[in-house]
């Protein structure tokens, strides 16, 4: 089995891969720090980001790659008004006015021309019919898209072409996440109580964009689509809120992607405390559940998760990304990875950190996690 076949089998339990595959989502800052490529270029250039993705996939021996930025306009350099290096950060002022500050180790942030954080629109001023898809990682920050440009898929297509034997995953934001990214968390959370009808009308529209993007990613060569649904855990909302504002809309996104590509794999990435809502997550029709943060970051006991999720739902993650991967030793990482494999393998499990590998995680630690997959007793 090559990596792509191994991942495919793991994502379609009860099929059994020849060993538990390994694929961690890496924070963008981890690419900035560990590829030797310029951070601003990784963020803004499809070709450069594809190169960074491949570089670290090969270094770590991952079986899969998550393309977690949209493709970029190939003419993005023409939009630069000026660029300067200050205190280790790159500041790019765009002709449109906004300024992007690129730190050496973390996601860039886009500020207004006045240097201030973007002010989100008020829910009252938002018309649901305006909405299609909210892209949080556009060159100009959080933007409302009415359609997807051709270059949206450039990074994914390039990675697909250069890594035909590796599982390549695309990313979409859930309707609920999109709305929160647009309105800001406080306003969006209050809106659930103040104007649930309007919230639902907005979410309904955002289903269209997410489903369209998901289907297009599959057409561009993605083996799976990850739905980023970071705000759907118990740190933010109740099970009741989940049933009302997340489940119906994520279900429709998945339904629509699968109507277009019936064998597509679509899985859900939710951070933090999700131990109380596996049943609801599964009810969306998702193929898999990603991150599964263990205590203290989240509430997931892996053995409990494996028992409670159906056998046809794969799980990915559960290695503590902070206390083990970032702050632990390679031996800690290796040991914890083997433990996870023993608990959740050999079918329907992808070895991974819960949430992203943080920027300053020592590469030796990531390598130790990946090594565990190849040494695991499950390996055939």
């Amino acid at each position, binding site marked *: 089995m090559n990596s792509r076949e191994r991942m495919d089998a793991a994502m379609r339990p009860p099929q059994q891969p020849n060993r538990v595959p390994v694929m961690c989502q890496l924070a963008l800052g981890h690419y900035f720090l560990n590829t030797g490529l310029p951070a601003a270029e990784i963020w803004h250039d499809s070709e450069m980001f594809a190169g960074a993705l491949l570089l670290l996939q090969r270094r770590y021996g991952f079986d899969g790659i998550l393309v977690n930025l949209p493709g970029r306009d190939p003419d993005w350099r023409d939009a630069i008004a000026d660029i300067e290096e200050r205190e280790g950060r790159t500041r790019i002022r765009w002709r449109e006015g906004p300024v992007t500050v690129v730190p050496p180790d973390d996601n860039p942030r886009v500020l207004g021309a006045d240097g201030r954080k973007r002010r989100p629109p008020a829910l009252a001023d938002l018309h649901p019919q305006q909405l299609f898809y909210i892209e949080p990682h556009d060159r100009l920050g959080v933007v409302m898209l009415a359609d997807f440009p051709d270059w949206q898929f450039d990074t994914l297509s390039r990675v697909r072409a250069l890594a035909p034997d590796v599982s390549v995953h695309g990313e979409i934001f859930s309707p609920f996440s999109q709305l929160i990214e647009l309105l800001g968390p406080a306003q969006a959370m209050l809106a659930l109580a103040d104007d649930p009808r309007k919230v639902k009308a907005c979410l309904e529209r955002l289903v269209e964009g997410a489903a369209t993007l998901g289907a297009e990613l599959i057409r561009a060569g993605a083996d799976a689509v990850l739905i980023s649904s970071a705000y759907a855990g118990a740190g933010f909302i109740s099970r009741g809120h989940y049933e009302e504002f997340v489940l119906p809309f994520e279900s429709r996104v998945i339904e629509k992607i699968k109507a277009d590509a019936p064998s597509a794999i679509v899985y859900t990435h939710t951070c933090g405390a999700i131990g109380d809502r596996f049943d609801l997550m599964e009810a969306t029709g998702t193929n898999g559940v990603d991150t599964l943060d263990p205590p203290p970051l989240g509430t997931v006991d892996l053995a409990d998760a494996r028992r409670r999720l159906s056998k046809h739902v794969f799980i990915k993650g559960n290695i503590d990304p*902070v206390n083990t991967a970032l702050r632990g030793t390679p031996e800690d990482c290796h040991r914890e990875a083997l433990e996870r494999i023993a608990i959740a393998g050999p079918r329907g499990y992808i070895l991974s950190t819960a949430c992203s590998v943080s920027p300053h995680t020592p590469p030796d630690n990531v390598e130790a996690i990946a090594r565990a997959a190849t040494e695991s007793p499950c390996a055939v």
Partner: protein
Amino acid sequence: MSFDKLRFAIQDGDAAAAKTLTSALVDSGSVPAEILNQAMLPGMSVVGARFRDREIFLPDVLLAARAMKAAMAVLEPLLLRDRVPSAGAIVLGTVRGDLHDIGKNLVSVMLQGAGYRVVDLGSDVEPDAFIDAAVDEGASVIGMSALLTTTMTEMAAVVGRIRERELHGRVRTIVGGAAVSEAFACEIGADAYASDAMTAVDRVKAMMAANPSI
């Protein structure tokens, strides 16, 4: 008129009722400090405890905070008139390089709900800005939040600057955030760590009891 109705209005996040009930209590001759201490603060305390225990969730807390704010708009001028002191001042902010403020805002809500005056510096706060604000406002506690593993190290910079400015012992620090832990807090020399907003209130109370102002 009973304080219970106001307490429940805050717990239920009913801003209109909270405002009306506060006005009615004032009109009926209730002492502003008693309205605060016997209705509003206990109401927010229940909200904090229920949030910690995952009986209620972020939208419910934000609604309760809005109700508290509506009631405070009625009460604040009267508390100032009566020279009712706050429980103490605390400087709060998300550290340099970090724009995430959900957790910090939640802690702010709970601290205000416990009667503290919160000097909220927002996000992306420079180390010295925390300390300058503490000195200017007479705050003996600085609360720092960070979501990112790349920015939590900034907390150490603030602790370091407090020592350099010879304010250690007079200005204490409490840290929190998704990736922050008790071990990390000890490692950087912070005075306290809180895993959630209600714990933050408890820890601040303990620190304030020992050292009420700078």
